[in-house]
């Protein structure tokens, strides 16, 4: 049963219950603000999660049709799966690994620090690290990030031992079990990590933070939340004065509804958020909502990624324990001597045998491939996550003729690698291989990027309204009661896994919305 009537226009309406939307909902509810939270996916609980890669993927991943274009290898290997994103209460925080790093000071000023880079649409963020410091603190506390707030680091698993031994032999200094939103000891009513090794499938011990079992129940406990699951938003409507006023959604029985609201916050992740704005075009906003800059759907970033797996004489058993069990941070600075701008992190990564088969070298067959798989027990792995360049041509557009099950144009995701991305990836492959070579790997595999797990930048924040879609609060430049509340806001990608920053921005946005409501600005 809905708590708030369709015609009641006094609440804040949030689309999407993942890292951004779930956090924002809770923060607003805690302040006594009524929130309607619309989520396209189903409401599962920890007990429903599967310790099985394909089962977990088909249970929670967003599988509605998407198309791809561009020269990135994902378009060739996974033409209808550009991204690994979840459709469920909790969004992709159900499948995420938990790595929680702050963006570095210099990365907020990418344009100033890197200078002009050809074909890159670089911009400085309209805020600095010091503007976010207190909010980062709050986010780390909320999420229980290890190595902050006196929370000890996690114990390293076998995969980390291999990384650590190789990295330190190579002379790397910043190598440890990382900053993880995973309980290394019981905290916040949740257990500590059992080292299951199924972080990407939904954490069955609840040790890993997810809005599903932290923010959302906390918001529900206030009595201010109206959570509606299996509700897919199709359009955002506006009134004559140009402010947004309602959303149209389909419920699980296929019924269409119009829900009014005072403020609308979009947190559907960086493909669905711009898709929704573009699909809401009207005669007043012919290019879609909040798109006077023409930047909605552009500057899509996915991090420069790739993996390195290596085989050893003796067993590793990388699948045991946390998926992202450790990190090398020595390459995360900006050092143009390496031949590219920006930096990257190297993080351990383990896949189970089913996903190894699918991702090691998509499309591969023959002896080399089967040899790697049958030596699964002897493999160690790591993942590259580095800053990729924003490019105007990379992004999300509405497909000209293909429609989804609701008749809404499917999104096409276009991505061409920038020369800087390629130079960085090659450098990172070389360093990752050197790490494993230092501990006598017998075979080393360069593994191409997976469908994007980090999706960013398609409604970026900017100081000037002509450069981006929203201001430093995530409020759109064009429509002051429309907010962007997810990773689409990112002006640049930085080298760090994005979720801690998405949560930080959501906490900050909640304060801003509350202030604006109190001062009757909104």
């Amino acid at each position, binding site marked *: 049963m809905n708590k708030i009537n369709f015609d009641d226009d006094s609440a804040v309406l949030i689309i999407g219950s993942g890292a951004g939307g779930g956090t924002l909902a809770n923060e607003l509810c805690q302040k006594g603000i009524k929130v309607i939270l619309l989520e396209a996916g189903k409401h599962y609980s920890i007990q429903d999660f599967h310790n099985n890669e394909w089962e977990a993927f088909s249970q929670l991943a967003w599988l509605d049709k998407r198309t791809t274009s561009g020269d990135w290898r994902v378009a060739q290997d996974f033409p209808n799966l550009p991204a690994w994103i979840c459709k469920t209460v909790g969004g992709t925080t159900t499948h995420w690994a938990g790595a929680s790093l702050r963006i570095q000071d210099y990365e907020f000023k990418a344009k100033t620090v890197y200078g002009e880079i050809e074909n890159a649409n670089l911009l400085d963020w309209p805020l600095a690290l010091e503007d976010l410091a207190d909010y980062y603190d709050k986010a780390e506390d909320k999420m229980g990030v290890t190595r902050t707030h006196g929370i000890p680091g996690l114990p390293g698993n076998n995969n980390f031992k291999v990384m650590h031994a190789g990295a330190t032999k190579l002379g790397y200094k910043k190598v440890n079990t990382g900053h993880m939103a995973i309980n290394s000891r019981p905290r916040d009513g949740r257990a500590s990590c059992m080292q299951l*090794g199924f972080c990407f499938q939904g954490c069955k011990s609840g040790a890993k933070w997810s809005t599903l079992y932290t923010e959302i129940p906390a918001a529900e406990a206030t009595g201010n939340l109206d959570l509606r699951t299996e509700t897919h938003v199709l359009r955002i409507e506006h009134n004559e004065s140009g402010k947004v006023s309602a959303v149209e959604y389909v419920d699980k029985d296929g019924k269409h509804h119009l829900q009014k609201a005072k403020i609308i916050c979009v947190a559907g992740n960086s493909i669905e958020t711009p898709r929704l704005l573009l699909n809401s075009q009207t005669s007043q906003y012919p290019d879609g909502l909040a798109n006077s800059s023409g930047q909605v759907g552009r500057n899509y970033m996915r991090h420069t990624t790739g993996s390195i797996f290596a085989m050893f004489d003796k067993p590793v058993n990388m699948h*045991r324990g946390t998926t992202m069990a450790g990190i090398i941070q020595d390459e995360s600075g900006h050092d143009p001597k390496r031949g590219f701008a920006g930096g990257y992190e190297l993080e351990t990564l383990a896949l189970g045998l089913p996903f*190894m088969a699918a991702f090691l070298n998509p499309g591969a067959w023959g002896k080399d491939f089967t040899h790697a798989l049958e030596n699964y027990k002897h493999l160690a792995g790591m993942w590259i996550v580095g800053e990729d360049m924003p490019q105007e041509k990379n992004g999300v557009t509405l497909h000209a003729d293909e429609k989804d099950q609701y008749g809404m144009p499917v999104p096409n995701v276009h991505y061409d690698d920038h020369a800087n991305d390629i130079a960085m990836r090659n450098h990172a492959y070389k360093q990752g291989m050197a790490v494993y070579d230092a501990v006598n790997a017998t075979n080393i595999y360069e593994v191409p990027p997976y469908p994007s797990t980090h999706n960013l930048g398609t409604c970026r924040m900017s100081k000037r309204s002509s450069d981006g879609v929203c201001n430093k609060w995530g409020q759109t430049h064009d429509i002051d009661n429309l907010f962007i509340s997810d990773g689409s806001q990112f002006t640049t990608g930085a080298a760090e896994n994005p979720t801690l920053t998405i949560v930080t921005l959501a906490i900050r946005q909640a304060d801003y919305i509350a202030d604006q409501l109190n001062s009757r600005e909104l």
Partner: protein
Amino acid sequence: MYKKPISRRLFLKFGGFSTLTSKYLLTSSAGLLHALTVYANEPDSLDENDIKLLFSILKQMYPHNILNDLHYQKVVEKIIESSSSDEAVNKIIKNGISKLNDTVDKTMVKNTWIESSSAEQLETLKKISKTEFFSKLKSTTINTLYNDDEVWELFGYEGDAFSKGGYLYRGFNDLDWLPEPPAEASPKFKG
């Protein structure tokens, strides 16, 4: 790919696996017969020769000494299943099989697939590697052969961990052939 020759010790290890699996080999032809008799009577279904050919192709595409026919049979059954329930797939498979011998003839001007040497078969596979038939075999194998808990066990992947209490007390950090990282990099678990 950057490669070094594989060490001798690794081969010895897998030598052990092969003897372990050989006992399954006896049961596998019975399984194959079962698959044949179940599907043989359907119209347009794959006949005995088709199925033999599929086994042979799959083993050439995804060679594993430590697996036996029983493991590949699950892939073959999946192909038969989708071929009998989906006309488009049936066409792709039937076509692929009938073209295979053509491909062999034209390129090697010698033998049928079954008569070809292993090296010749590999050459033929390279020739057809861009076809729909080949893609279908690839995707079915990836989703079936490597999603089989018997195969997992042989390759050393342990599957579900929750029902066994995770690895916290079962070897998540039992690797002992490299130095232990210091506590500041990897703190001990204090339960």
